[in-house]
């Protein structure tokens, strides 16, 4: 079973991204869970969301304390939240930032696992012309976890967007561009 914890700020779509990831994994035949931790619901407040992805039915219904992967949708959270808490050392952290991993180390509590970065905000601004980094982050974490191929992801996301944006089809292509670019531009890990 793969366990993923998302850190974002209210309004950035971390919850939506976790649900889209659950959708994507579901479509590959897996058992999934996608759930947010509800706290004070206000724009900008730190929020947490979770995914479990498994080949067998999932029965546990607690939050995730020892994730395999952590996704940070907003790098200003690094100073506010202990994002690597419990993160497995053979796992990885993915951060939306325009900084290099070396510049972030001081906020990662000496985390020894793999560190990936992507400038999802830039990708979002350039492709979607608005700050919705979640689809780019989703694409990057799919690549890192290897839960599906790029072709599967692109097909799956197109189907999701067609459904989600049925009333504003003009945003489907920009979102697809963001997905494709994020998949190619995520860096870090062993490189």
């Amino acid at each position, binding site marked *: 079973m793969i366990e993923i914890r998302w850190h974002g700020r209210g309004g950035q779509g971390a919850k939506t991204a976790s*649900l889209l990831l*659950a*959708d994507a994994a*579901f479509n590959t035949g897996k*058992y*999934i*869970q*996608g*759930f*947010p931790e*509800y706290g004070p619901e206000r724009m900008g407040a730190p929020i947490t969301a979770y995914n479990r992805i498994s080949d067998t*039915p*999932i*029965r*546990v*219904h*607690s*939050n995730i*304390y020892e994730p395999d992967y952590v996704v940070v949708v907003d790098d200003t959270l690094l100073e506010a939240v202990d994002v690597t808490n419990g993160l497995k050392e053979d796992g990885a952290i993915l951060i939306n930032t325009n900084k290099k991993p070396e510049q972030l180390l001081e906020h990662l509590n000496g985390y020894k696992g793999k560190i990936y970065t992507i400038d999802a905000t830039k990708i979002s601004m350039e492709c979607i012309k608005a700050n919705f980094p979640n689809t780019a982050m989703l694409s990057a974490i799919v690549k890192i976890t290897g839960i599906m191929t790029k072709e599967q992801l692109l097909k799956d996301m197109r189907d999701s967007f067609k459904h989600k944006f049925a009333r504003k089809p003009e945003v489907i292509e920009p979102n697809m561009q963001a997905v494709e670019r994020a998949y190619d531009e995520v860096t870090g890990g062993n490189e």
Partner: protein
Amino acid sequence: MAIRERLSGNEAVATAMKQINPDTVAAYPITPSTEVPQYFSNFVANGEVDTEFIAVESEHSAMSACIGASAAGGRVMSATSSQGLAYMFEMLYVAAGMRLPITLICGNRALSAPLNIHNDHSDSMGVRDAGFIQLYCENNQEAYDNTIMAVKIAEKASIPVMVCYDGFITSHSVENIMLLETEEVKKFVGERNPVQYLLDDERNISMGPMDLQKYYFEHRKQLADAMRGAKDIIKEVSDEFYKLTGRKYDLYENYMMDDAEIGIVVLNSTAGTAKDAVDKLRKEGVKAGLIKPRAFRPLPYNEIPEALKNVKALAILDKCDSVNGYAAPLFTELTSAMFSKGVIIPTVNYIYGLGGVDVKVNDILDVFDNLKNIAKNGKIEKTTYYLGMEN
């Protein structure tokens, strides 16, 4: 053909309601069950159901409208949580006393004060003596299945049914689920055929008038007898559902209990977490087991004591508190049933997770650790623990 889907608990329940297509739904929104009437009102607006949806001004009115519509002869559903259920209290007794087969969805949530929107079972446990059948659900699949079965159970027993599942943990979590085809659901639930109803123009009756002493006692006894008889109806409907879906339901679920030396009893989503704890202990050679009551009303007062009679130590977990200076309802009722059946086992009560405090596999392992000691010593130090609050 079963449909493989992924839905939140609230979506799953709303989908079941859509497939049931009841005559009337009357509801007032309250977190965390708000989405149920929200999704359902979309189905109404889109013409996917032909239900009369009544957007009432309070939960008291919601249950009142349900009572009227059910007495008129309709198939009726509603959904609520927490303060909403508390506000319905008066009308719940009327629904049950009038023997109206209403299905009420309860997304379990804590009661104020302090204000809290998260999950525990204070709400449904607080109305446990209202005369409703209560079915508890571990996950989205069970919430969906029990909603479908509830309609049939209610109408066969002439008793309203409450379907309880954990707020947020189940209501807002997306999980895999197997859905039935709508035609299969429609065939399973059939049509409601009330023996008597207000809109029967060939037979003028009144319903719900005053009873003087003797009649009142007789009617209450009839309700109590019907609740006793509901055990067989629940089993019968569950057997029929098993034949349709392959998913087996009883009054309770027995998980690794047959040869268990230590066991716990727990409701709803925590039962899933506890099954992982049981598996972990079994791998270490510890004979742990679990009982998950599905029906709390009617209480399986024969069946559960029989299923756990061979353990050396038992913990009964309650996600609510009676604040009676002693212990919580699942514990007091099951230990009373055990005593009546002559099943005398060292048994402790754990009150856990109030206001949505997260319960991990390790928390359940802590309970089992205590049970190992109790099993070894054969006696208990104290009756009631507050999980995670003992240090």
